[in-house]
């Protein structure tokens, strides 16, 4: 089984969570990661520069129509929904907020599930709302691999709990365990 993309949804507590996962990834980790992190509408992206310093992989804001490349981490720009097209490029929209959020995790996950079907890994991490629950369910329905942060280890347990109440994920663990698990999966495919 060759996984072609990883989508991650994270809300409150997200900065720390991303720091832990991104800094654990080796430079040769090739599966692209696409992240929705809930942020204020006027966030300036300075934090992406900060995260980049901690990671061996390139981290960048996703651009409209950009082709998704291996070994890159993409972050949804603030105040836009991020969607994935079947040709593995990004689309941005300013549609209404979903679950009070723009970008919304559900919007990314549902479009990613359609685009990658069973070649997708979906991950729900710490957060204080239930964005991502519908999306992770859709990923599972399309045959993708699902991972949820163990609520006991989450800065904010609500979002992982909501996801666990909707599906039985393939893996539950702490941030370190999730990072380890991803590295193992990536090695298996070689």
């Amino acid at each position: 089984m060759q996984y072609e993309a990883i989508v991650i949804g994270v809300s409150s507590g997200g900065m720390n969570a991303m720091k832990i996962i991104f800094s654990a990834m080796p430079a040769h980790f090739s599966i692209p990661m696409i992240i929705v992190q809930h942020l204020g509408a006027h966030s300036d992206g300075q934090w992406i520069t900060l995260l980049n310093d901690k990671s061996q992989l390139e981290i960048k804001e996703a651009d409209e129509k950009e082709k998704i490349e291996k070994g890159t981490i993409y972050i949804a720009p603030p105040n836009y929904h991020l969607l994935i097209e079947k040709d593995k490029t990004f689309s941005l929209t300013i549609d209404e907020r979903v679950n009070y959020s723009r970008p919304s995790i559900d919007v990314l996950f549902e479009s990613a599930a359609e685009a990658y079907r069973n070649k997708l890994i979906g991950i729900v991490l710490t957060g204080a709302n239930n964005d991502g629950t519908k999306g992770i369910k859709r990923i599972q329905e399309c045959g993708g691999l699902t991972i949820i942060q163990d609520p006991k280890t989450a800065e904010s347990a609500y979002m992982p709990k909501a996801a666990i109440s909707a599906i039985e994920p393939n893996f539950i663990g702490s941030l370190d365990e999730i990072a380890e698990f991803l590295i193992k999966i990536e090695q298996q495919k070689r």
Partner: protein
Amino acid sequence: MQYKDTSDLEISLLLEAIYRKYGYDFREYSQAHIRRRILNRMALSGFEDIAQMQSMVLNNVPFASELLQDLSITVTEMFRDPAFYRSLREKVIPILKTYPFIKIWHAGCATGEEAYSMAILLQEEGLYDRTTIYATDFNQLALNRAKEGIFSNKLIKEYTSNYQLSGGKESFSSYYTSHYDNVIMNQSLKKNIVWANHNLVTDSVFAEVNLILCRNVLIYFDQNLQNKVQSLFYNSLINGGILSLGSKESIRFTDYFEHYSELDLKQRIFKKKY
């Protein structure tokens, strides 16, 4: 046997049906976006599949209008992206001041918030009396609301903050009067705005203008359609005219990249070369 995904096929047939029956062309819109809007409508209206919805679209005009509203995104704000309006004031207004008459095309104006923002800015810069703003959209319901210029006062706090951040010179409350839960924009702001129905996908050049604003519209189009619309803009601008796009939109991947210089790259303001 090779075959296409059924729902992809049904969506493209539905879009074809809408185009052939009503003339609205969504066939070159971003597919992930269109799929999401259509599936949402399908769930809300309780259809079992897209084929069922297609029959409804063809035979029930009120339903077709409803779907059209779903496919037309009207999310907007006054002084959306204040830094952009600040840049307009600092970098574009001085250029506009050199012309005796100014024509501005606001393409995809939805419910008009940004057209009113522009009118306010021009008034403060002493240019409004010699300006015509063509504010266009294909969504007639949205245009009707834009013309009324009545907005919910729940949003005014945010708009006021946007206005101040954009370098506004007056008190924002001097531009409207409150009326119960709404605010009504001053009549003087409307006088030089021409509201018109224009579809970027199917209609052509209608004026030669000094400035085009088209923000967060092209993101919904595929590459091919973006190119077509860029050609429309290029042919509508005078030499030295200004093109303003949304903060995440680019001309880099279109055929017209070479024909513009950058006036403010971060705010996506470009100048047509002579």
